[in-house]
């Protein structure tokens, strides 16, 4: 079974600064995907960024980037130029890759509550 660990329950950052959220995972699978989701107070789960394990290049989406270290099973999220709207719970998630039909569900970490301070 897969497990996802987020060791930082809460973090804060000043507006316009950079913050890094940590995530580690444990799996015996070789092919998988990793995700970061954001959940603002509205409860909507929003996909922030996705990384394929077979890709060495770190994924980037505008101000969001990841540091994926496959050997270390580490998948951290960096938010640059933090904005007040980035205040939310951030969940790291793992999904095993399927070769045929169907999809495996996501396994989530416990989340990190990020507060961006003006």
């Amino acid at each position, binding site marked *: 079974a897969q497990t996802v660990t987020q060791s930082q329950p809460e973090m804060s950052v000043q507006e316009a600064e950079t913050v890094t959220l940590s995530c580690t995972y444990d799996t015996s699978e070789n092919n998988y*995907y990793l*995700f970061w989701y954001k959940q603002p107070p*509205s*409860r*909507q*789960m929003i*996909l922030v960024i*996705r990384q394929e394990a077979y890709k060495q290049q770190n994924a980037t989406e505008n101000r969001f980037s990841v540091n994926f270290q496959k050997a270390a099973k580490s998948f951290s999220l960096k938010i640059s130029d933090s904005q007040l709207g980035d205040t939310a719970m951030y*969940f790291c998630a793992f*999904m095993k*890759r*399927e070769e*045929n*039909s*169907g*999809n495996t*569900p*996501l*396994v*989530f*970490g*416990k*989340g990190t509550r990020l507060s961006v301070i003006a």
Partner: protein
Amino acid sequence: SAVISQKPSRDICQRGTSLTIQCQVDSQVTMMFWYRQQPGQSLTLIATANQGSEATYESGFVIDKFPISRPNLTFSTLTVSNMSPEDSSIYLCSVTTGVNSPLHFGNGTRLTVT
């Protein structure tokens, strides 16, 4: 991506009653999943809703307590039966639009049981 409508958005229910949550998607999807998020906690998978067959439940969740229907490729319901205060949670419907595609989520249903 898919647009997911989940109803109701919130409800307050009495102990011993049941609530059915609806999840409507604007396109046909192969896989639908139901998650529970207890207060201040992460998301836990309840079951996978399969069209045309019975749902597949995770350990700790049973069909009698959480019956699920999936009559077609765009709709599913989750019922929380014989509710107790411990069932107070956010319940989220999620879908995937293809193999190895990320999950998309509805806005969730905040359930409070008194």
